[in-house]
């Protein structure tokens, strides 16, 4: 199996013999099974596990981690491992969750301090109505609306700045400096100006998204290969054509970079904005209020929702990027 891919022969790579290392897979499986067995055994019990059990659980975690690292090493070295490269990361997460579940149950850590993963899942389902309402407020009304406003205003402004040397010199240093301003500083001012509801948070999001987009789009419009402009001139292209056919495509990758950055900033802006005043709903509000009264299970549930939304939104923008800038060097096969 080691020589399945002849191109690797002679590259000095150590040929891993045979299939996946049997001992590693065995250790990984045995560790996971023991942890799983304990979780099921302790499902309804509420006493602290014996010292022997606790030791066994730590041992099982270590053995599984060792097996995982050996298996990951094999996958990294072995050409046949290419199709299953996602496995080590997946198993890392599974092992972390399973070990947390088992150890938290073994030591009977109160749910008010650190809830077990299954408790969080249960709460995620039980509190789905509240969390859905929070999501609508935070994600749709604040993050997405603010993001669209910020990007919508940033685009014409960047065109204006790119056309004027005076504005480039006068505005860009301010725009760049703005990225080092912490969002919480804006939130109280905006909450006072636009009220406690979603408008103030959307404004915070719009402002935080605005500046990275301006900085990146202006760079994209201006940092263009001079040879490309010469070529356009040799085609006798007019200003409009140069702009549409050379500058805009050149700016697209910069624009999408700013959008990807903007999705993260928008989620942070909406959540952090709610820490400074909200109308009793919103993921940030939920997190802050429940953290203060030790409702950590619902805090975790809210964080899971926020993270899933953040990743999905980022993924959507990355997908759009691949669709619209497939010709770009960084994405070519």
């Amino acid at each position, binding site marked *: 199996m080691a020589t399945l891919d002849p191109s690797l022969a002679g590259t000095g790579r150590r040929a891993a013999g045979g299939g996946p290392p049997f001992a590693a897979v065995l250790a990984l499986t045995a560790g996971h099974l023991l942890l799983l067995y304990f979780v099921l055994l302790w499902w309804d019990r509420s006493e602290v596990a014996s010292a022997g059990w606790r030791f066994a659980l730590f041992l099982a975690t270590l053995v599984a981690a060792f097996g995982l690292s*050996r298996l*990951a090493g094999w996958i*990294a070295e072995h050409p046949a491992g290419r199709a299953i490269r996602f496995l080590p990361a997946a198993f*890392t997460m599974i092992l972390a969750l399973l070990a947390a579940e088992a150890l938290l149950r073994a030591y009977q850590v109160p749910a008010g301090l650190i809830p077990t993963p299954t408790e969080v899942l249960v709460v995620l389902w039980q509190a789905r109505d509240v969390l859905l309402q929070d999501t609508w407020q935070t994600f749709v009304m604040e993050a997405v609306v603010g993001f669209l406003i910020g990007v919508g205003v940033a685009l014409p402004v960047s065109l204006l700045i790119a056309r004027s040397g005076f504005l480039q010199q*006068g505005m860009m240093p301010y725009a*760049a400096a703005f990225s080092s301003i912490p969002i919480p500083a804006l939130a109280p001012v905006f909450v006072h*100006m636009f009220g406690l509801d979603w408008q103030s948070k959307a404004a915070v999001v719009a402002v935080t998204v605005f500046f990275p987009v301006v900085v990146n789009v202006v760079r994209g419009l201006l940092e263009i290969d001079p040879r490309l402009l010469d070529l356009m001139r040799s085609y006798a292209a007019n200003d409009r054509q140069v702009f549409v056919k050379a500058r805009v495509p050149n700016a697209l990758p910069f624009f999408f970079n700013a959008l990807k950055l903007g999705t993260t900033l928008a989620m942070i802006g909406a959540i952090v904005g709610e820490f400074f005043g909200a109308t009793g709903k919103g993921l940030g509000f939920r997190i802050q209020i429940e953290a*203060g009264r030790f409702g950590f299970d619902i805090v975790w549930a809210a964080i899971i929702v*926020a993270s899933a939304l953040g990743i999905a939104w980022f993924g959507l923008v990355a997908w759009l990027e691949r669709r619209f800038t497939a010709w770009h060097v960084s994405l070519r096969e």
Partner: protein
Amino acid sequence: MRARLGNLGPMAAVAAMAVLLYLPLVVIANYPLAQRALERGAVMDCDGPLACAFSLRNPVVPAPGQLLAGIYNLLLPLDSPSAIPINAFWTGAETLVGLALAALVGFLFAVGLVLSRAFELSVLPWIVASQTVPIIALAPMLVVLLGQYGVQGWLPKAIIAAYIAFFPVTIGLAKGLRSPDSLTLDLMKTYRATTLQTFLKVRLPASLPYLFTAFRISTAAALIGAIIAEMSTISFYGLGKMLSENARASDVVGTWVLMIASAALGILLVACVGWVERLVTPWRR
């Protein structure tokens, strides 16, 4: 695009334009409020809603004079616990300690990532995914949790700042440790340098610019972390404490002054990081 001497003219012109645009903003935002106050018969020593728009006690947008007075009130005395300088100092110190902590732990992780492909396959996807997640949302809970285990004072704030900066710093350091080209590494081999020597003389210096790029990106985020941590628990100092006190007292001018102060602190910290970078990587100038 940093501020350069040649930019000063246009920058000053843009700043002047912003100030000129600010005055009508004050009027538009405060005029209805002033008008209503006068109609209700409030006693104010100004004539007409236009003049009163600049001297409302709780304006929507404070007038320039009010802002300057507010800055003056909150700036002095320098060591007063209710003034900005000492609080900004603590928040800034927490953030910088957090950054140093992130660099330390991030360095260990980065070495692991570079040395072991297995570690990279298992851990790197999660570190990368964390970049698209609002990890700041964990801060209120973490700081309460740390308090339960007796971690109090400035340390939990620095820890929050550190864990926010940790992910970008780790990715940056790992990239930096890998950045030396094979020519340089071959040269070291011809010198019969040991792995450790190659690491210390080639890989480590090569990773520093990447570290500082990561710092520049994550300093503002770490500062947010420190401020949120100060707000989420009982604090006796810090801009976060001042912000939450101000929000309760609904002192509008104070809120604006704090916004300006936090912004200034953010810019100052990034400048600080840039200054340390020039100090530590003199060969890059």
